[in-house]
């Protein structure tokens, strides 16, 4: 088989490279990032308008595909101070400046770099450019890293809230004896005598089976309200997403995230209502 020296990554059943599984800058770069640049001869007012319009803190200064530097609020303010000092008693108008008067030298990272190695650089300059001076692939800012880490962590946080509140609601619905009876009614996948008797030793799927079983529903309906099948489907969705997230089966989608968030809100509503009832308060 005749192959070139620079073969693309192999397709195979899984298109991700092994290194792609690690948290590299490539993961942090937003998928839909569109690089907007300015020319060195752009008036600063125009460049500042672009920053404001897009909510950016910096812009690459480019001629064709060559990066000359970074224009930012920081580089602008530094240039203003410097040029106003140089001007001494002469009239100095920052609005007459051009982007080329306020260029910072950027730092370049590679997509395969671990992003934690760039924390100090980003702290200092607000951003690092990814790629090379004549092949810019993207810009990573502190907000990109924050958003990425939030996206990675938040499903775990949501699932923890859902699971712990579900346990609490089961406790509010049934006492220990009833819980054992409910478990014995429907948890048939355990060998006889080994059905767990406390929630801490049950799986999320066990909770779903217990609450969603038609024979147990009367115990849980006062807390969960509504219809059994709809309640059970919601809990099954939470279970499936939990398993996908905790076992790293796939990356969750925006819709999955919204489903989790909505489930978490629903659980919070049930918990608030249940607490208000137990304390005699009104919702």
């Amino acid at each position, binding site marked *: *088989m*005749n*192959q*070139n020296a*620079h*073969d*693309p*990554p*192999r*397709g*195979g*059943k899984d*298109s*991700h*490279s092994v290194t*792609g599984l690690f948290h590299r800058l*490539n*993961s942090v*770069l937003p*998928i*839909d990032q569109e690089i907007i640049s300015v020319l060195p001869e752009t008036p600063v007012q125009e460049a500042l308008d672009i920053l404001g319009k897009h*909510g950016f803190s910096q812009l690459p200064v480019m001629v064709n595909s060559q990066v000359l530097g970074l224009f930012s609020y920081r580089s602008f303010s530094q240039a203003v101070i410097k040029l106003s000092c140089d001007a001494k008693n002469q009239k100095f108008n920052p609005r007459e400046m051009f982007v080329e008067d306020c260029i910072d030298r950027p730092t370049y990272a*590679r*997509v*395969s770099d671990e992003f934690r190695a760039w924390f100090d650089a980003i702290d200092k300059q607000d951003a690092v450019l*990814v*790629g*090379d001076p*004549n*092949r810019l*692939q*993207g810009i990573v800012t502190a907000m990109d890293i924050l958003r990425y880490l939030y996206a990675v962590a938040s499903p775990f946080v949501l699932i923890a809230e859902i699971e712990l509140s579900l346990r609490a609601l089961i406790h509010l619905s049934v006492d220990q004896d009833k819980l054992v009876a409910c478990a014995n009614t429907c948890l048939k996948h355990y060998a006889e005598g080994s059905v767990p008797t406390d929630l801490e030793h049950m799986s999320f799927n066990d909770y779903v089976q217990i609450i*969603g079983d038609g024979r147990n529903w009367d115990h849980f309906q006062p807390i969960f*309200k*509504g*219809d059994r*099948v*709809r309640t*059970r*489907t*919601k809990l*099954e*969705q939470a279970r*499936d997403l939990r398993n*996908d997230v905790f076992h790293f089966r*796939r990356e969750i*989608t*925006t*819709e*999955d995230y*919204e*489903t989790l*968030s*909505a*489930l978490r*809100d*629903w659980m919070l509503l049930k918990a608030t209502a249940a607490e208000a009832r137990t304390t005699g308060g009104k919702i």
Partner: protein
Amino acid sequence: MNKQEFLASLQSRGLRAWQANFAASFLEADSAAFQLLAGPPGTGKMYASIAIAAELVSRGAKRILALAPAPLCEAWRERLTDAQSKIPVVLVTRPVFREIEAALPIGRSPWSADGIYVISQDLAKQNDLAAGIATVEWDLVIGDEAHRFAAQQRAALLDRLTSASAVRRLLLLSDTPLPSLDPWLHSSPDQPVRFSSSLVVTSWFGALTNWDGSTVDRPEVKLEAYLYKRGTDEVKCLSQFFVSFKDLQTCGGGAEFFLQLLTQRASSSLFAFEQSLQRLGHTLRSAIAEAEASLAEPTAELSDQQVWASADFDPMAAYKRLPWADKAAALAIVNQCLEAFESISTDEKLSAFKRLVRSIIDADTDGIPMICVFSMYADTASYLHTAIDDLGISLFKVTGATSFTERQVTVERFVKEGGVILGTDGALSEGIAIPQVTHVVHYDLPSNPVVLEQRRGRFDRFGRSKPLTMYVLRDESKAIPSESRLNELFAANLDSGTDGL
């Protein structure tokens, strides 16, 4: 290998006569460089294209580009990988593209290496990718669902490729009958000519022939409407919501889109509707919190017409736009409706569905029936899965959450064991065929006739012999007026076949 030997080899690989004949004629030395293959779903355009790609690779082709809609990219990658092993098949996403680019010396095109590159049309149309793709020569470019190239940016991608002479052979595939492609194929005087040489069109609409020369029979497809009537509480809750939302003051465009989206969800199932409201409630709460923190960025206001008319319309972006001036009022309506939901103890559509499935199972005396249940939404598929798990028959579910490979495995198990398979439009789409299915239940109906045709194409494969019965659930309460129109569209479509589109 001469043409006859090539045809025999394709036949031995399971291709049907019309697929093999097209592949063989496409590969003839004097065949047109640019071709369009139009045929109804179920005729196997993808299989013919894969055979062409594999044969071209065996003849020394180095670079092939497959431009597919994003949900179908994985299927294309799998099929192309299975069909040949000579050059790698790469599913290009943005991160994969960055990796490829970073590994190369500066100035070298990421597309210069041998390979079959599968790219979603929406990624490929982006400026940097489109520019790079047009700088190398492609032995073959396949464009799936060709009608999508009528959208401005995707058309620009195709124009860029053809005008740069980057394409040696072009194969466009379309489910759409030819007249509807006319405006796209025949450029207006103010538009550039799309193809440097004439585009040869092959149509599989109409009679197709088998290997023995006989005409392919279309199996009998029966349509049955299964009637039910939504409960009083259900009707009250639905109408209360829609009346309240219509009265809300809007800001910018998108309100009409939003109401249509929610109507489709409500039409699908009570569960899908409830989940949409839960998600909408979450989004509204976030928007209100952001506005209170003065962090919400004002979005450009678009009219409804602008929102819909955009050729590259993004439903997710439209959904996020939240077109109501008073978001707190919108949230109050959502909360009221969710509260009302809790008091609804019936779901007459679901009950009717359970009776229908039960009756199909009971009527099947030959063995285990093969039933496929379609929905537009994963929420509805999950709901139905939970609702019928006590039927005592094997149950399978495929949604967009599962990979193409997992979906294939699930479908293979279903074909082996029989029972009920629940699927969404996105998951049971091109690349998956289940001609063994005898009963199809459309739990909801899509408003897009092309989607309906694609559903039908999964089962109503050319060459199948068993009869097929399709069911729609028809609400006699007419609580959602648009459902009647969808039912009529469905019946008309089935009566006239694909020509009726």
